[in-house]
């Protein structure tokens, strides 16, 4: 009987102890830092006044139901002209907008952009940067934060920007910008319609 009493007491103690569990109050708002809401590709003409064609994909609700809004401003590409391309990734859900490029630069060896030209569009793309440039690691593998686009004959077609996280950069063709053997997981994949005139 004595044991029973002791156990009952213990039980009561436990219950009273547990009922004072901490209340967390109102949960705090989370604005995700890693969301890429905005992809901006700038194609700056290497000729004349350096006109800029700006390709933007903006998806302010990230994984929410709204689809990205895509725009191409600054007119069409000019046949035979070389363009210097740069890409900026931002998270506009936070203010001021966070530029995600910094993280990509810090982990340049684990990221690579791919620029694909769809059939129909007469253009070529080559990388202008290397990992070594950002990490000083001696690697000549490209990252793709800057590139050159050369517009060929007048045509219309799709231009796709892809960012892969942890791709296999040493696989065949990957350093030339071919996705076939790249693997990894997709962080950005967006397509723009371009016209060369």
């Amino acid at each position: 009987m004595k044991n029973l009493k002791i156990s009952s007491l213990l039980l009561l103690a436990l219950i009273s102890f547990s009922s004072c569990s901490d209340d967390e109050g109102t949960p705090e708002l989370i604005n995700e830092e890693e969301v890429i809401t905005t992809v901006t590709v700038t194609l700056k003409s290497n000729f004349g006044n350096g006109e800029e064609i700006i390709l933007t994909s903006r998806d302010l609700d990230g994984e929410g139901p709204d689809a990205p809004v895509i725009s191409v401003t600054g007119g069409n590409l000019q046949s035979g002209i070389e363009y210097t391309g740069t890409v900026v990734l931002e998270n506009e859900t936070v203010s001021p907008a966070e530029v995600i490029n910094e993280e990509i630069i810090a982990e340049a060896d684990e990221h690579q952009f791919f620029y694909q030209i769809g059939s129909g569009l007469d253009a070529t793309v080559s990388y202008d940067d290397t990992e070594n440039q950002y990490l000083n690691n001696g690697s000549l593998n490209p990252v793709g934060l800057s590139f050159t686009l050369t517009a060929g004959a007048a045509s219309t077609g799709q231009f796709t920007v892809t960012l892969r996280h942890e791709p296999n950069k040493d696989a065949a063709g990957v350093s030339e910008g071919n996705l076939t053997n790249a693997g990894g997981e997709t962080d950005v994949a967006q397509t723009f319609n371009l016209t060369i005139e």
Partner: protein
Amino acid sequence: MKFFTLVFVCVFGLHIQAQECDYTISGVVRDFHDGQVLPNATLSINGYQKYALSNLDGKYALKGLCEGSYVITITHPECEVAEFTVEVSGDVQRDFKLEHHTEELNSVTVKGQNLKKGSASSAAQILQTDALESYSDASLGDALREIPGVSSLNTGSTVVKPVIQGLHSSRVLIINNGTRMEDQEWGVEHAPNLDLNTAANVTVVKGASALRYGGDAVGGVILTESPKAPAKDTLYGKTILSGASNGRGYGITSTLMKAYHSGLYIQGQGTRKRSGDREAPDYVLSNTGVSENDFSVGFGLDKFTYGFDAYYSMYDAEIGILRASHIGNVSDLVRAINSGEPDVIRDFIYDINAPKQDVRHHLAKLSVFKRFEKAGKLTLDYSFQQNNRLEYDIRRGENRDKPSLDLRLTTHTLQSNFAYDARSDFKADFGVEASYQENFPNPETDIRRLIPDYEMYTFGAYATASYDINSNFKLDGGFRYDFSEIDAEKFYQNSRWEERDYDTDFADLIVEQFDNQLLVNPVFDYHNFSGTLGGRYQFANNWDLKLNFSSASRAPNPAELFSDGLHHSAAIIELGDLRIKQEQSYKTSLELNGQSGGFSFGINPYYNQISDFIILEPTGLQFTNRGAFPVHEYRQVDARLYGVDLQAAYYFNDQFDVKTGFAYVNGHDLDRDRPLIDMPAPNVNTTFSFRKAEWNNLNVSLRNQSVFKQNRFPDNDFEVTYINDSGDEVTETVRISESPAAYSLFHLASSAEFKVLNQSTLTLGLFVDNILNTAYRDYLNRQRYFADDLGRNFKIQIKLNY
């Protein structure tokens, strides 16, 4: 000391002898439970040559006693030995009550437990210690597949969830040593957070008839039971060491029990498992290592009329998730399905990197009981559980080492049960249960919460009874009522809130508005009714027929209500729905068991009709800067499942036998007239065993595991337009629905026993799984799109009982 004793005995002895010695102790010996008289009980006075036997009326008389204090020992063939102290200073009238049932409880554990846990009429099966021990380095879900009708829903080979007759997750309750596990079991990628080495046996009740443990067991109940301490002075234990070639893993588990004659006991148990990357026949399954550390301690007092148990267990596991199954968007999924090989194959390592799960479960429990004469046993339990689940994804920058999911679920449960057992032909249980649960998703993940902050209160009350009409015919039944209230605080993206039309239906739930998110406070109440009714008829020796009807009612779980986010392993966006109501099942189960000569069999057909069955299914695509994602939404349909579990065995002689089990389940969505997703394919398991007691108890068995192709699956294939690797836009059908091909595997198990030292037994086991190194994929493995299942595995096991 001896001297004093001697003096004391002499003085005391002389003192007694000086008295008149013609007193009598007389009375009646009765059964504690029902008060019936007990004939043939032997009463003896310790230290004196005096005995008496109770007569047919239970009466006894011990004559010729002097004044003094006597200890009387009473023995009865069906009762535990009991001692009572009686003071004599004249004739004494004294009735004794003996515990009549201990003999039954100890020796007939197998049959007794069936009655105790589910109901006599429900289909149930038990896995005993020896069967569990061969899985000491694996998981509960692996072990339970031994039972026909129980399969598993896997994420790779390391996250294994039991499926009972086609149903799983929130529909299968796991009762760990009397406590319902609250380990975020709603998730299909969340394995039960318990170490099967803590269990002495595991019972599977295939239906909702175990009402004492919950009314929402639409699929069934899995009950694990800890080893019971014997009421004698003893110290024993066991250690099992195992090593496996696939994954280059090892496991060690040890149990130690110290028990006293008084009923006091203390026990401890610990397990460690470690494995590196597992291997499929043709490649390494990169990042599939496991590291698990568990322990449990318990102590208590187990007297006949009262007692208590205190128990604490901790489960801690780090589980690697196949690297190649972590994908970015739907075109990554298309690539994975088309390539037929994992995208990431690296050399073997032990390290576990992201993606991975890191889960920890604490369970503390205190229970007390008291038996009342001519009534029964009252039990009061309090349990505390805390489950912390961390899931790590591949992340960038300073978030790299942060978990993407960090949920802490805390549950307090108080329950009380009264088991009425005063009559031998009528037994009943009454009980109440109340719980408080709090979920805290840690905001430091910096990822929007998949499951929100919530508090949940539940209250349940039940009554179950069984009645023996005669010795062959038993009826049982029961009902249960459960109330639950969930009070959540959740952030929705404005766009999601509007897209779900919540702005028209639930506008009053909004607490606060931010730039692009809303804080809402849904509070939902659910009233659930469940019940069971059945009978068991034993129409010949070893032949019986059971019929059981049960209805279970399950309130939606937090995932079904609130989930709202991206699942990386499947590249899907999963959406709960605030409008979801409870589902109600109506199940009929028939079971016939029989034996004739060396042949025995069991056949268990069932039909389960479920109203408002909650399912997750694809409803469209959503576009983001990362590409397209299929959206899966929870919704409710009327469904039915029917099937049959069969088992048969033939004992040729003492050395050879063959056993086979077959399970078939057919699930159908009645609203849309199409098959239900994720139903186990028909399967047959056949084991040939050879045993020779003279050869060190040698046991060799060869098992064939054959799984047919599941031909019944809903067509959830969808079309997606994406840019292929050469930069062109293509439209392709994503074939996610098709089930993998049939497969057949052979497994070998063998063991032999050796006596070591004086009281210890060493058991040596050698196992080979998937002997032919067959490459296969299983329909119920969520990683079947990415990689083959496990290849050949050699395992040795050394067990020492001491």
